[in-house]
């Protein structure tokens, strides 16, 4: 579904990704793990078009992502839940969800998508007229994921969904991951929380200093010495 080949990307003169190759197949959940500053967030941003690669190709179901204007990439079926959620704090939950359905293809299905999201997150329905910025961290994360789902994406990019949440809420977020997968969505997830994320994904990549250091199935990654030493603390 998603194919990255030889991608270089960075900010100004700072290069964050080096010759990166990555694949996500339809229906898969793929994790991206690695230390702070390894380029995980840059990877997500380059896929959704928030930054553009300086070299390499990105294809979504055969469509050239690099040649697509940033605001049209969501129409290719890629929805990005950014780091720190990035809700519109002074808009209501309803209006935040509305923004998720902004693109022309999604507007016609606004009501039914809203039903899907409220079905997945009944809490959002209770809070629909509340300013998004006044909700708890967990609720805001639900809203951010809900907003991304409004565009009816094929591929969901989740950047650190558990960051800054209380442990019990982190559990809920990972539970949620399973329910989202059950709806047939393909997921690419960046997480610091290595042990937990490896329990919900099929495969994972380990990124260090902007390159892929290791990759494999969750079981392989859990058994890998590199991963064990560095991230699992065993």
């Amino acid at each position, binding site marked *: 579904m998603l194919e990255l080949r030889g991608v270089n990307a960075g900010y100004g003169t700072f290069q964050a990704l080096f010759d990166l190759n990555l694949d996500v197949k339809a229906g898969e959940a793929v994790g991206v793990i690695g230390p702070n500053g390894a380029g995980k967030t840059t990877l997500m941003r380059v896929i959704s*078009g*928030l930054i553009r690669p300086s070299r390499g190709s990105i294809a979504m179901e055969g469509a050239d992502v690099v040649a697509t204007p940033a605001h049209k*990439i969501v129409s290719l079926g890629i929805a*990005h839940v950014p780091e720190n959620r990035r809700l519109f*704090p002074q*808009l209501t939950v309803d209006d935040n969800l509305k923004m*998720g*359905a*902004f693109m022309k293809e999604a507007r016609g299905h606004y009501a039914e998508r809203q039903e899907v999201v409220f079905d997945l997150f009944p809490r959002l329905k209770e809070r629909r007229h509340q300013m998004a910025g006044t909700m708890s961290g967990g609720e805001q994360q639900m809203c951010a994921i809900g907003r991304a789902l409004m565009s009816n994406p094929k591929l969901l990019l989740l950047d650190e969904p558990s960051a800054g949440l209380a442990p019990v809420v982190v559990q809920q977020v990972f539970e949620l991951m399973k329910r989202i997968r059950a709806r047939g969505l393909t997921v690419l997830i960046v997480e610091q929380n290595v042990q937990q994320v490896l329990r919900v994904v099929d495969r994972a990549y380990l990124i260090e200093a902007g390159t892929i250091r290791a990759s494999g199935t969750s079981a392989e990654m859990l058994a890998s010495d590199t991963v064990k030493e560095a991230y699992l603390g065993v």
Partner: protein
Amino acid sequence: MQAFLDIFDIYLLEAVINGILLGGVLALLALGLNLIFGVIDVTWICYAELVMIGMYAMYFLVQYYGISYFIAAPLTILLVAILGALLHYLVIAPLLTAPPINQLLATGGVLFVLQSFATVAFGIDFRNLGIRLPVLAFGDMNFSYARLLSFLAALVGMVAVYLFMTRTFTGTAIRAISQDRQIMALMGVDTKRIYLITSAIGGGLAGLAACLLVLQYDVHPFVGLSFGPITFLICVLGGLGNFIGGFIAAFVFAEIISLGGLFSDLEWGYVLAFAFFIVMMFIRPAGLLARRR
């Protein structure tokens, strides 16, 4: 003594109501400027000059081409809306990432360009529509029909903008964009297009204001000076970019002008309003309601 108080009360009531009527148009002007500032983060110093161009458009359409006022008005609104979009496209867009002072100087330059253009093209004569609307009398109080009409039309304009901003996808995007510019692309929003639409709406509001002001004031190349500065003061007093603050500040200013004018002449009302502004800048420098973030 009692007779004096009776008369005073009537005049006071008349002044209060006239203040409200004036406040409507000022609020409309402030809304346009606040919209541009709140969404695009630039200040259109030349905002009142767009109104001036709109007033000339009304004058020529009505007086020269003999078109009815009610057909000329939407044409003028459309024209100034296009002018607003052009202003954004030609002047603001290339300077979006420039320091604010450069943007201010550029729109300040447009102000002089528009004034000079009007002087050269239309001369410095004072012109008016030649429409004299009657004065309405309620008991001992007199109200200008033009003011009443302007107030209602301004209200309709503001309600229309409110509905657009809250009910439509594009309006919601306009409100969202000032809260987080970077991620708008993730929502499938083309920020450039939203900026153009916002500028057109800002221009359209200036056009509507022009249609209303031309009923009460003569148009000349420098007519912008008589309501441009006050519009800025209102926006700053309300907190730049704060729509509700601007709305309230417009009526506060209008009442000060109107009630101040009661004690001597109208010019003193303006002096009081400006003095009030200066005092408020010491007390609440961020505006009556600090900008909501």
